[in-house]
């Protein structure tokens, strides 16, 4: 039983990692007032690009760099539509998701080699001998480097958001774009920056999803709603990077719990266990939503001509 719990916690950390990576960017985008709902689809691209680059180019560094590039391009597309064209953010995000779902499936169909062969995954940073240390061995030392990075990110994000000028600008823009503009800030520019950032990190999150352990891409929506779960985590976490990451950790735990419970008990149909992360998300939203301080222009378009 004890080993199962350790096993579960280890998986929880691993499953939470991609969510936390994605949330890094999304928190900034939403703080600046733009909900990037395309992160679900962008994650798919990240997962695919990561696997493809790792397999064909045989370089994890290139995989990460390519992922960043693709994420930036997709983020730019979202930014153009939602910020410059002031398109509805829900619609833009959903359509980006739809394109991504189709496109990744299509591209994946053309790279049949990656179906059979596992791409190189992120390495662990600690020597294998340390993996066997009881409890902390499997829990921490056997984690791939991506998990470690994921758990440092929220603190970096918090520093940027609260302790730098740019972070101050982001917070100001989301709460009062007009005031920010009159204070001399480029509201549009800042929104572009945050949305592109959210694109990059969503893509990286996708990359972590496929390359942290499995090394495969799978067709038909591998992200399985994780992008939306991150959006929920931002709300529940009150758009604070560290708290959002904690919520991601809880969702990750729910995600991994279903796999663990399946191995222990067969009385509960596995489909109900699969529902767990989604149900937990809804419940968390319901309990926490009232306590969240929403960025004032969350989800609203900003027209610079509105003086």
């Amino acid at each position, binding site marked *: 039983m004890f080993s199962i719990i350790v096993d579960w916690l280890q998986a929880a950390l691993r499953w939470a990692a991609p969510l936390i990576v994605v949330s890094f960017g999304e928190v900034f985008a939403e703080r600046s007032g733009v909900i990037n709902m395309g992160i679900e689809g962008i994650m798919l691209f990240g997962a695919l690009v990561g696997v493809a680059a790792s397999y064909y180019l045989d370089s994890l560094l290139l995989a990460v760099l390519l992922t960043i590039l693709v994420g930036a391009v997709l983020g730019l597309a979202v930014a153009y539509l939602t910020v410059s064209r002031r398109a509805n953010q829900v619609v833009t995000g959903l359509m980006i998701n739809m394109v991504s779902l189709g496109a990744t499936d299509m591209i994946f169909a053309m790279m049949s080699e990656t179906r059979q062969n596992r791409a190189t995954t992120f390495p662990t940073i600690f020597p294998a001998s340390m993996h066997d240390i009881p409890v902390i061995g499997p829990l921490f030392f056997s984690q791939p480097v991506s998990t470690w990075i994921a758990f440092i990110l929220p603190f970096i994000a918090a520093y940027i958001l*609260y*302790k*730098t*000028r*740019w*972070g*101050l*600008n982001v*917070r*100001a823009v989301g*709460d*009062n774009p*007009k*005031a*920010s*503009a*009159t*204070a*001399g*800030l*480029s509201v549009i520019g800042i929104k572009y920056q945050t949305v592109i950032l959210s694109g990059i990190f969503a893509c990286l999150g996708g990359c972590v999803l496929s390359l942290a352990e499995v090394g495969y891409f799978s067709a038909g929506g591998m992200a399985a709603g994780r992008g939306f779960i991150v959006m929920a985590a931002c709300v529940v976490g009150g758009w604070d990077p560290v708290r959002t990451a904690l919520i991601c950790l809880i969702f990750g735990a729910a995600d991994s719990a279903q796999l663990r419970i399946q191995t222990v008990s067969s009385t509960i149909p596995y489909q109900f266990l699969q529902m767990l992360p989604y149900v937990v998300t809804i419940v968390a939203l319901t309990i926490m939503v009232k306590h969240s*301080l929403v960025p*004032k222009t969350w989800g609203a378009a900003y027209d610079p001509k509105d*003086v």
Partner: protein
Amino acid sequence: MEENRYALQMQDITVEFPGVIANDHVSIDCKKGEVLGLLGENGAGKTTLMNVLYGLRPPTSGKIFLDGKEVQISSPYEAIENGIGMVHQHFKLVDTLSVIENVVLGIKEKKQKLDLEPAKKRLKELCEEYQLYVDPDEIVWRLPVGKQQWVEILKALYRDCKVLILDEPTAVLTPSESDHLCQAIRQIIKKGCSVIFISHKLREVMDITDRITVIRDGKMIGTIKTSDANQLILAEMMVGRPISIDRKPRSLYPQSEPVLEMHNVNAVDERGIPALRNFSLTVNSGEIVGVAGVDGNGQRELAECIAGLRKITSGSISIKGKPVTGVIADPSFLGFIPEDRQKTGLVLDFSIADNMIIKDYHEKPFAQKHMLQYKTIKKHAREMIRKYHIKTPSEDVKVRNLSGGNQQKVVIARELDPEPVLDIASHPTRGLDLGAVANVHETLLKERNRGAAVLFISAELQEIMALSDRIIVLFNGEIMGELDGESADQNVIGQMMLGQRAEVKE
């Protein structure tokens, strides 16, 4: 260097909106260390002119000189770089941030790390220098409105502005805060800074400025030295004809009986802060009760509580003996002209006809057998358009495309035509030109004479005194005192607006 006496010159500024010329070859200049008054009615184009100067609106044509040099200003950032500071009529503060964060916001520095300590030190020095005290660490929304004004001014001063624009700065201030502001302005010009003081209130312009430029209908009427001017001359320049808001003659309404009764009402605002404290008031039929006070002292909550839009935490409100429990959408019972007509009173994307039935779309004769009767609805709308002189080509026009005055007429027609027993008029003349204001005043007086109980909320003392039978003064959610409309004294009201109770005086 003859030219350099001027800190700022704007020459032949023209701004055209689709179909409207907001500024028509307007020229102003402001000497160093001078306070220039920019006087004009609401909508005369003062704010537009200043938005041009601040880079918020590109002019159609015209030139701007700063310190004798021509400059191009196409964004607020460039304006700030050029030493222009602006305090907007509607504050441009991020109210979830602290004072100091607002002050440093947008200032470009090489260091990305946000180190607020030096900034705080400098801000404290500025506070001392200009006697405008604020706590740098306070979150802006927790500050009273007057203090927020200080933050705006300090923000501009922190950026070493050479020209400071103050757009209607006294609109949200109590009389004593206004005096405080005047002292600060004197201190500011002592440092060689120039101030452009925008207002439509004659008295304060006379008090503080050195010269005055008057704008009317987007055109420049003239510039005169304040020492050569008097209120009468200015008023004529401003409106093109002599004006006065005189007290309207009236007769006592015969069968006066209580309509609105409020007992010990308490209510909180969105942030959970008490907005009304043990508020008791009775308004009788056939009288106008004016609610005076600086904006944000509970006026909005008062109106919303009576209309049932806001829940009260304790106490009781009843209209004609019926307790108010939920939203009152019965137009023959309560007519409510909300303070923000575009946000609350109207659906901008609906036609005039649709806006006319906003409260009784489910009632006869507009709806029968679960069907909207568009024939009746349109006929009703046409009737209202005629009766209330709404200027529109047809009843199908979207309200969005009407002018402010005509939008207000739509609200008034809908709210007051069913002859409600109680009228609440919340800032009904805000943003309207004088003609439309007179129209609204006349309508309210007519309502009184018909026998309606009228609660008239306004921040303009003049119109409160002109219209009200009784005046109450609201401060911090409490009634400071009640005065008779005939004998009320402006100074007494002014002191009450500051929070001095009637009893304390004397």
